[in-house]
């Protein structure tokens, strides 16, 4: 699909779709949505880019090295966030019990570790979508 109209419309829309996905990830703890849903939106934006502009340009936007790193260290990031509780003398993945400042209710910085964990999970989900799609696309071509 190398249609001119499709390309222009995608070029106009995709930045907003990505911004919206990042917004949903970052505001997962203060507004509806969450890291899984936001990650899917970000991943789908890159998938749409790959379907419209072709696999090579899609791969140039998100190289395989980046997805591999995010895949591996996204899961590790979750574990590191869990270890914060242990270093503070509380159970694994503890948040309030570990004495972390929860901040003002409703603010973007509220919730202690929850925002950071959500960010990791969101980026991870996006990278998973991209990896699955481009691997299958490469198989086809």
């Amino acid at each position, binding site marked *: 699909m190398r249609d001119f109209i499709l390309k222009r419309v995608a070029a106009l829309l995709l930045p907003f779709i990505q911004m919206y996905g990042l917004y949903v990830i970052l505001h997962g703890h203060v507004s509806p949505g969450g890291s899984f849903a936001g990650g899917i939106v970000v991943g789908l934006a890159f998938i749409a880019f790959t379907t419209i502009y072709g696999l090579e340009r899609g791969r140039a936007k998100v190289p395989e090295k980046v997805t591999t790193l995010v895949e591996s260290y996204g899961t590790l990031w979750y574990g590191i966030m869990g270890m914060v509780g242990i270093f503070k003398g509380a159970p694994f993945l503890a*948040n*309030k019990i570990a004495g972390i400042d929860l901040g003002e209710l409703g603010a973007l910085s509220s919730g202690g570790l929850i925002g950071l964990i959500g960010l990791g999970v969101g980026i991870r989900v996006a990278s*998973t979508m991209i990896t699955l799609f481009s691997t299958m696309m490469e198989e086809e071509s």
Partner: protein
Amino acid sequence: MKLGTLAMLLIFLLAAYVVLVAVAELPPYGMVGNPSHNQVSQRYIENAWEETGVLNMITAIVLDYRAYDTMFETIVLFTAVLAVIITLKTTEREGGGK
């Protein structure tokens, strides 16, 4: 009909009967007195915001109360990607080995 088929049919019908009896015993959907409406959901609704400092109760449950579950969910994603890459990835290596 052979005897074996008949016996098999009988066993299937018996199993279906047991399952249907169990389903008939389930409490009606959405009633107030159901066992699923216990103190767990009550506690989440009342205390989630002050125990986690998060407005979105679903995020509070997914990333705080059930953080272990979400952690292994991400590991499930990792395993899924790993399986897809192992089965589908075609990398040409030197030396003819694949």
